[in-house]
């Protein structure tokens, strides 16, 4: 430890071995770690890699966002008339028949969220249009790239999840093994510096190295997005970006502590790297996916086909119950009992739709809960909630359909008591109203509250591995 001068040693001796931590020593160890990471080009390498990745991917994601925004704009400006067409009657001397033809315009699309440039989350799914009527039909996903869902979306969440964790491990995995291999750890521990000063010093050095990498890279991305998309034009957006950064740092610290723990546990750098990579693969790739898979097994939901089959069964049951009145799907209102049947059918359709939508929401909530147990799952769900592209917003999206269908069901029921013209007018008005609805953003407070569970999970993981590292280092036999 050449940096520890005699003055420091004298100060230390004068103070004696009291319980107070000597911050100078901690800082010295931390500074040495940061300088080492600069000298071996790790910080410059990580900074350049992370900055180029974040900027490059932000550029690609901004093109994707513009494309989706332009798609929404075209959809909004297109006429919303239900049908374009007409009827021609053939009136002949011995009879008549008619011909009708028409075509409908596209159903409405929801506006993509500006933060989806940053963290796309589930926003792609929410770009799907839907037809709201007696029942809801979800249209196909956008057709640009069939294979896009085979791989992860390369947004900021992707970079943080995979690369920041690896960079954190790169800084921490050999922090101790390096010293053990060179024999400098023994030397350092022989100096009048206590283990509980050396350990925080090292940890601080590694964490500061990570911060020196992630901070400027993140700032560059924010500036790029601000200049290109004016994304952070209000305080709320800025606060969201800050919260996301805080979550990313917390996530990075989990891996700093994991790497640090491994580095204390093993003696050789290459073994630490193997253990670190296995831990990384388990934490980042296996655990969140396993949690999501487990949710799907434990809480299955209705598929659209099952929902369709239920709906079909309801129609069949009603047909069988009242064959005289419902000879076709659309019963004649004039027949006795037809109105009751139609109301029952509408109510049954609404109930089964509610069940389908609630099933999706509940599964998603549980997946968030389960996946939040792992750091990568917590990060993905946490930052997508903060970016308004997560579970909360998907709930809002489905709520839009649910409330739309409720309005439609109500209008279709009320139509039965009106004259055909008045009924048609009422239904058209409700269709227009439903089609013009756009989902509202969740308030920042709701997003922060949703992100609190992932934050707590990350803090627990970081604390667990931090304490494990401290405990292990206390037990470490320098001989």
């Amino acid at each position, binding site marked *: 430890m050449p940096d520890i001068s005699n003055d420091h040693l004298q100060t230390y001796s004068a103070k004696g071995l009291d319980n107070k931590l000597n911050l100078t020593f901690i800082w010295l160890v931390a500074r040495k770690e940061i300088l080492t990471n600069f000298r071996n080009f790790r910080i410059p390498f990580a900074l350049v890699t992370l900055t180029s990745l974040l900027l490059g991917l932000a550029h690609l994601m901004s093109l994707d966002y513009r*494309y989706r925004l332009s798609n929404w704009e075209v959809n909004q400006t297109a006429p919303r008339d239900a049908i374009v067409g007409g009827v*021609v*009657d053939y009136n002949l001397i011995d*009879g008549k028949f008619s011909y009708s033809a028409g075509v409908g315009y596209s159903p409405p699309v929801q506006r993509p969220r500006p933060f989806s440039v940053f963290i796309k989350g589930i926003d792609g*799914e929410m770009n799907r249009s839907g037809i709201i009527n007696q029942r809801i039909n979800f*249209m196909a996903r956008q057709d640009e790239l069939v294979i896009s869902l085979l791989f992860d979306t390369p947004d900021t969440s*992707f970079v943080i999840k995979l690369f920041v964790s690896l960079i954190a491990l790169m800084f921490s995995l050999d922090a101790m093994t390096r010293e053990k291999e060179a024999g400098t750890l023994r030397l350092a521990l022989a100096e009048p510096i206590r283990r509980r000063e050396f350990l925080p010093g090292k940890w601080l050095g590694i964490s500061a190295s990570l911060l020196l990498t992630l901070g400027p890279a993140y700032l560059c991305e924010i500036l790029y997005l601000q200049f290109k998309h004016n994304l952070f034009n209000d305080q709320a957006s800025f606060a969201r970006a800050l919260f996301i950064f805080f979550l990313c740092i917390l996530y990075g610290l989990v891996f700093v502590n994991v790497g640090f723990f491994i580095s204390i546990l093993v003696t050789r750098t290459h073994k630490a790297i193997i253990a670190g990579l296995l831990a990384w*693969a388990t934490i980042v790739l296996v655990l969140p996916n396993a949690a999501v898979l*487990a949710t799907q097994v434990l809480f299955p939901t209705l598929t659209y086909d099952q929902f369709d*089959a239920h709906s079909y069964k309801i129609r069949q049951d009603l047909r069988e119950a009242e064959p005289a009145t419902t000879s076709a799907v659309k019963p004649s209102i004039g027949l006795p009992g037809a109105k009751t049947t139609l109301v029952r059918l509408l109510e049954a359709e609404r109930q089964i739709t509610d069940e389908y939508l609630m099933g999706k929401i509940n599964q998603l909530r549980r997946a968030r809960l389960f996946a939040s147990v792992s750091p990568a799952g917590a990060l993905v769900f946490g930052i997508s909630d903060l970016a308004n592209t997560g579970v909360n917003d998907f709930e809002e999206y489905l709520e839009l359909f649910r409330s739309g269908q409720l309005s439609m069901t109500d209008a279709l029921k009320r139509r039965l008591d009106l004259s055909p013209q008045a009924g048609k007018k009422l239904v058209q008005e409700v269709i227009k109203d439903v089609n013009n609805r756009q989902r509202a953003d969740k308030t920042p407070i709701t997003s922060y509250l949703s992100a609190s569970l992932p934050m707590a999970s990350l803090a627990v993981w970081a604390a667990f591995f931090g304490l494990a590292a401290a405990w292990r280092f206390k037990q470490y036999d320098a001989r």
Partner: protein
Amino acid sequence: MFRVILQRELHEALKGYTFKSVIVLLTLLVPLSAYIQAVHYRRLVEDYASRQNIHRVESRNEIVVLTRPVPSLLPFFNGVYENRPNEFRLQRDSALVLPSSEDLAPLEWLFPKVDLSFIIGVLLTLMSILIAYDKIAGEKARGTLKFVLSFPLSRRSVLLAKLTGTTLQLLVPLIYAVFLYTIVLIFFSYKEMTTLTVSWAELGALVLTALIVLMVFALLNMAISTTVKQSSTVMVACTPVWTAVVLLWPSLGLYAASSLRPIAVQEATQHQITLKEAELIQAELADHKEVAAGLQTQKAGVEVAWERYIELRRRWMGRRNDEVKQLTDERRRQINGRQQLARSIVRLSPYGALKDILGSLCNTGPDSYEDFLDAVELYYQQEFLPASMAHLARHKPGLNNTNQNDELQLRPFQVPSPSLGARLKQAALSLCLLLGQIFGLLAVCLFRFDHYDVR
């Protein structure tokens, strides 16, 4: 001597913690993933059957719904099967082949489904690095390489022995993963009508493809290992390469293709098609109006009018089909152009190539989806539309010759199911790229190892 080196390699691998950790990790993840896939597959098959029942009862003479059957190897690789519409509605009165409503799958945007392609392409490739990193650099660091090279054996044979050892070490977890996956899958997917059929040849092709992918990473390791002196340096060099090639490149490639080949937004094309169809419908209605007025003036009967009406319908339907098809074909051409570019970029990554090959092998890739779309188009043009128009022509209104039991008779819709050879042929380009990477890396290994200075 070759056998001695090989035995030593295998003995060391079996003794090591890495190999055991790989087996433990696979034992945990593979059954879970296979179980989910089995349940998912069973549900898809049941859904398909229930959809078929509904369509059989509800389909009318003017509307027919075509559904894509569930590929039997889907649980091995889900591919794009569920990302695109698998059901289309053919209507006598519309030139558009419309997709039916689809299920919501929000979780897939956050966590793509874990199937065998993920286990092989991500986890096992990472394991291959962990297994192979120490092969040469470790011996250099320990000084045992000098000793090995002093044997009466050529350097190439030493390298070949090490490579064979590595291949066998990779083959064991690979075969374990594939067979454990298959057994769990077959066991849990069995339920009345659900039968998962997988042939030994298909399993063999799958294992071979996976082994080729794993070999690329093992050889990459060895190539770096022959160049540097420390095992930790091999790991430090290999990890970023693996991350870039497996995790970054395929995701990046897709979005890069979108920016390199921009196309019109979907809504714009959709709007253009709707406008075109609306314009044609207006013209058709005007034509009908004119003919109807003429027939009324001529005091014609239903018999004559019906013939004119059917002739008009046929003519306008043909025109609408031609003009709308031009627009839809243009859209499909643009999408396919972008798709091909994306696939070409993605294929350069061994993980991307693996998914591409598995897509062809399991009939769940973009090629088989294109085949399905072609089959739907062909069925609409050649089967449904002529039969539907003929059926309409037979049903003259107000005349007693209308037979109520005259149902629309159509041959069953069939999606082409290519043989294993044809599927492998589809995957030839990706396979060639992988083999090219193997030979390239092998050449580097041989060159570096031949020039290794023992001093």
